[in-house]
């Protein structure tokens, strides 16, 4: 009896110790993730795109422009509290897109200098003083507005910084993707990390604008033997579909739900005042159309920057206008065809995906009145005075990018598409509450010049972002 009890106790002890020596890791449970629906769809809005998404205007990024970027306005209409939709805010004078003569300085945005009656760079910043301009540089996570001026469709997936972008030297990649701190995450990866329930995606513009604003758009045929500067439509189609699928799959894999994506298509270049019909340019430059000699004799479109060129080179004496300031018939057709192809590809990509919806920005901009809403500020100003001009046009001084009111129009376009597609009832931005100050605080003064001039430096700033 005693012996057996000892054995029994011994066995019990051995058993207890044996089970105790190694604790096994417990099994898994699984968290389920619900597909956002109803109001939850709008819980986490993130925007990706290029300069148009960044709120770029007057040839640069600046706080006062970013305040009315269309993503910010959409977020506000969705009910996001002020400051919660974080953007890469830049203090005045902002950051323009080109190197100045002195490489130690960076241009700020353009402004309308009322005293001179011309467009000029607001101010410039020594390169060592640029970082303090970036007011939200220490924001710990990717920005809610990931729009990078200059970004192409390829950059969306591949660019980590300026050196790996298709526009080497474009510091906006460094300022907005911040991979000197973050390590190495593309716009796509940063978007996925944020886990957006809804995102806006407006890319592809620079795939054609780079070529168009160079004055020498080339698909390898129009200027055979020279570098191609337009993304071929077949490649565009493939990259566009892949970008949408990478967003959807990436968010699904990491966060367990599919985001809603609203895309905008590519506006025709004829909708924007930067590309001027020859007659209009003649009027703006004060040179009779018959005297406007061009290197490209069949030039159909003159780039706005030609005004700066004329001013710097003595007006009539500078003619004929070099080929880089005009689009020939063939060039204009090439650009138009390319935009059409892109938009067909975008429509097809949207149609093939249940979580992707289209805002037809091209149609909306094409419907603008070229003599008022889509007229360049300086062209209007010479007729109606600068204050009225500023309150009329929807485009900023660079002639390509909308101004504050123009971006409000874009925001309303997206919001309309959301309301129509998702059954929401987001209020529109009241355009009467949004204004654009082309003088950037320097004022209109008392002199109201009717001459239309652009400084050469300003002209360089205007187009550099696309190169």
């Amino acid at each position, binding site marked *: 009896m005693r012996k057996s009890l000892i054995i029994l*106790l011994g066995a019990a002890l051995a058993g207890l110790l044996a089970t105790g020596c190694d604790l096994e890791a*417990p099994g*898994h449970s699984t968290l389920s993730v619900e597909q956002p629906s109803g109001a939850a769809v709008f819980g986490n809005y993130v925007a990706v795109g290029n300069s148009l998404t960044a709120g770029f205007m007057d040839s640069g990024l600046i706080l006062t422009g970013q305040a009315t970027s269309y993503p910010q306005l959409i977020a506000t209409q969705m009910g996001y509290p002020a400051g919660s939709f974080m953007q890469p805010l830049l203090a005045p004078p902002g950051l323009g897109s080109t190197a100045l003569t002195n490489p130690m300085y960076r241009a700020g945005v353009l402004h309308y200098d009322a005293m001179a009656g011309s467009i000029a760079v607001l101010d410039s910043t020594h390169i060592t003083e640029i970082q303090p301009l970036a007011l939200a540089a220490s924001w710990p996570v990717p920005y809610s507005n990931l729009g990078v001026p200059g970004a192409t469709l390829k950059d969306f997936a591949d660019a980590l910084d300026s050196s790996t972008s298709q526009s080497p030297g474009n510091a906006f990649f460094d300022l907005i993707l911040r991979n000197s701190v973050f390590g190495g995450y593309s716009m796509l990866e940063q978007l996925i990390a944020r886990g957006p329930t809804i995102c806006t995606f407006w890319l592809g513009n620079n795939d054609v604008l780079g070529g168009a604003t160079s004055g020498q758009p080339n698909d390898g045929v129009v200027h055979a033997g020279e570098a191609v500067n337009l993304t071929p439509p077949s490649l565009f189609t493939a990259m566009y579909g892949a970008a949408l699928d990478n967003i959807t799959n990436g968010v699904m894999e990491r966060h367990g739900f599919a985001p809603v994506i609203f895309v905008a298509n590519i506006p025709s270049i004829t909708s924007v005042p930067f590309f001027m019909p020859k007659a209009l340019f003649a009027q703006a430059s004060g040179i009779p159309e018959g005297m406007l000699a061009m290197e490209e004799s069949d030039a159909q479109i003159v780039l706005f920057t030609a005004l700066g060129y004329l001013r710097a080179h003595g007006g009539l004496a500078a003619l004929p206008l070099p080929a880089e300031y005009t689009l020939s018939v063939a060039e204009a057709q090439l650009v138009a065809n390319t935009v059409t192809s892109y938009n067909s590809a975008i429509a097809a990509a949207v149609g093939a995906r249940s979580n992707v919806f289209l805002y037809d920005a091209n149609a909306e901009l094409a419907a603008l009145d070229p003599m008022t809403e889509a007229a360049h500020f300086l062209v209007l100003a010479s007729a109606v005075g600068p204050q009225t001009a500023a309150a009329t046009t929807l485009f900023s001084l660079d002639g390509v990018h909308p101004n504050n009111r123009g971006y409000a129009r874009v925001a309303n376009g997206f919001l309309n598409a959301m309301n129509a597609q998702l059954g929401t009832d987001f209020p529109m931005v009241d355009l009467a509450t949004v204004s654009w100050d082309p003088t950037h605080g320097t004022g209109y003064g008392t002199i109201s010049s009717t001459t239309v001039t652009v400084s050469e430096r300003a002209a360089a700033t205007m187009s550099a972002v696309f190169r």
Partner: protein
Amino acid sequence: MRGTLRWTITVCLLFAAGTALAGGFNIYEAGARATAMGGAFTATADDGSAIFYNPAGLAFLEGSALDLNLMPVVPAAKFTGAYAPDGTFASGETVDQSFPIPGLYYYTTFEENLTFGLGVYAPFGLGVEWSDPEAWAGRALSYDVDLATVYVSPTFAWKVHEDVAVSFGLDIAFSEIELNRFRTQPFGGNMDEINVIDAKISGSCEPNFTPQAGVMIRATDRLTLGAMFHQQKDLAIQDGKMELTNVAPAALEGAVDGIIAGLGGAEHDGTTVLHLPHMLSLAAAYQLTDAARVEVDFVHFNWSTFDKLVLDFNNPMLDQSIEEQYEDVWQFRAGLSYDLSPELTAMAGYVRDNTPQPVESMSPLLPDSDRNDASVGLAYRVSDRLTFTGSYMAVIFKARSNVENGEIQSFDPEISPAGTYDSRADIFGIGIGYKF
């Protein structure tokens, strides 16, 4: 004497930070012999540990004795996180630690019917330290928590009748608490959760006095009934401190410095009240044969007093209210002892210990669950005066997940890791009893 006592308390506090061994963070293991019997000792209580288990038992003892017990506790916990959508999951385990829980008792009989006892033991404690703290999934709640509570209990036991004894005494509690956690922040292009502030919260309580009482009735030659009661405590911690250390990466260091400065600096004073439940044991022991004895105890804890832990700092922005919402529980304890010889006694026990902790407050601070404990032990009487006791108890926790129907059940779902905890503890005990 006063100095010695203080030293003893300090040493005990140092050691007594044990893992939670009985439901919640109660430690019912106050002596090797009782532990060997699964803690079913309230109706036996025939050594110094009676001062905890039932001081009335002292009244039936004679002479004076010293009972010194050391109960090294070796806890272990593992965590397996729920699958995230991308198929990844967190995991973690506690570092190897052992906590020698004290059970130091002295009693002396003044006259035939009156016995005085003094005990030092640690009925509440907690020590959960997770390895790889910087990466531990639950670090925003806790990566290292220590709670040590030592009771010093002077008590008198009266034999009011030949077969009936009662006791009355005081539980004087000393407590120290320390909690370490990280404030985390998503950072970088991949939104990695990084540590920005290391927060250490610590404090100790003023000595706290509450009554305790016991009764033991020898109902028949074979049947003994016992009951003991230790009143609940509200330990006021007045000297609490929170120390904030900036551990952010260089890119955020300045911003975090600003946050800490904005809070009013790196050090803050605070107060809290720690609620400890009462312990009520109702027990019956039966002498089966001359050699064999069984005991069954039902132990009640009003854990509902531990509803929340409110940390009140001089800067209200740092105030925290940690929801606990514990529930009252009964434990079942059964023990058997068998005299193998006049010198040698073998013991075994079983405990069914239902957790007072709702799943919502299961966390890295204390991942509790229902337990089944089994114990064995041997007592060897070297002489009429000297006894050695050895015990071992295995505390087997039921694996418990805070994920139900795919959703995390937590009072703090933002920072509480979702997943399954599994724990166990091995409690070794040695006791030396010496009768004067």
